[in-house]
């Protein structure tokens, strides 16, 4: 019985292959039980690290997406107002807890903060296009991230099962060796 392997790796995350027979797995890898156990434990730690990193990225994305949607809504409102030609009175945040009033006249351009101390002025249409693209990228990245997280969780489960089986096999081996060494003396 050879050990079957699932997806070998995904986006840099090594896959854990399910071990059908512990004996064959150990002879194939040329490790004894203890070194196999420590190797698998190390793998488990790596998976845990990757999972934490992915969770943090997921949180960031989940915070960004509503923000982009809000920006899109506002630009759409501005475009609607543009037609009527009346000025818009808006309350804006001066600092946390302090808001002041401003008058926004008919304007064609908006400024978008792109991060890293960069702000660019766009026309309304360009701004909408840019925001849409950002939103789609963010949503696509989130999907990929969720897929990655599921993959990592599967590998963690497989690795934990392998660790348990290697350990049990080792205990079984020790017991049978002990039994084999004691019975000749008895007989």
């Amino acid at each position: 019985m050879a050990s079957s392997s699932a997806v070998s790796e995904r986006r840099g995350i090594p896959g854990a292959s399910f071990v059908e027979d512990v004996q064959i797995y150990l002879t194939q890898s040329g490790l004894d039980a203890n070194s196999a156990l420590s190797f698998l434990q190390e793998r488990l730690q790596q998976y845990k690290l990757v999972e934490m990193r992915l969770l943090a990225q997921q949180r960031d994305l989940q915070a960004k997406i509503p923000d982009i949607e809000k920006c899109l809504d506002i630009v759409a409102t501005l475009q609607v107002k543009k037609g009527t030609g009346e000025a818009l009175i808006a309350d804006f945040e001066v600092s946390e807890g302090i808001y002041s009033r401003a008058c926004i006249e008919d304007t064609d351009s908006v400024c978008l903060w792109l991060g890293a101390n960069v702000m660019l002025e766009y026309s309304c249409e360009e701004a909408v296009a840019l925001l849409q693209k950002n939103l789609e990228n963010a949503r696509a990245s989130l999907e990929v991230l969720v897929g990655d997280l599921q993959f990592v969780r599967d590998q963690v489960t497989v690795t934990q099962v392998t660790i348990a089986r290697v350990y049990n096999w080792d205990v079984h081996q020790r017991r049978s060796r002990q039994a084999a060494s004691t019975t000749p003396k008895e007989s």
Partner: protein
Amino acid sequence: MEKMSLEQLKALKEQSDMEVNLLQDSLNNIRTATVRLEMASNALHDLSLRPQGKKMLVPLTASLYVPGTLDDADKVLVDVGTGYFIEKTMPEGKDYCERKINLLKSNYDQLIEVASKKKSIADEAGVMLQTKLRQVAPTT
């Protein structure tokens, strides 16, 4: 405290440590709130220097700014918590910030006193625990 048994001393030390940690957290929270209020107060002061009708970029969200002009600079909305906003004039707004900062500062001072008292109790309990342990150890 000398009359307490070993277990009681341990329990007292643990409880005091927990209380000290809680108080430290509260102190940190008050400190951050005070810093934010001071920033708000500075921003308000800055705003009061700007004339009405001055051209500015109005932040509509965290990453979207629209060119516009400053409307009535004498009126500000202050957030008083639980979703309520009150419109005040500029001097009233500044006064509100000042009062809030003073309130937080006095809370902070009071908390520091309580925290240092708790910490000294915790330290005393720790020292007592050590001496008791040393007393018990050589006899066993």
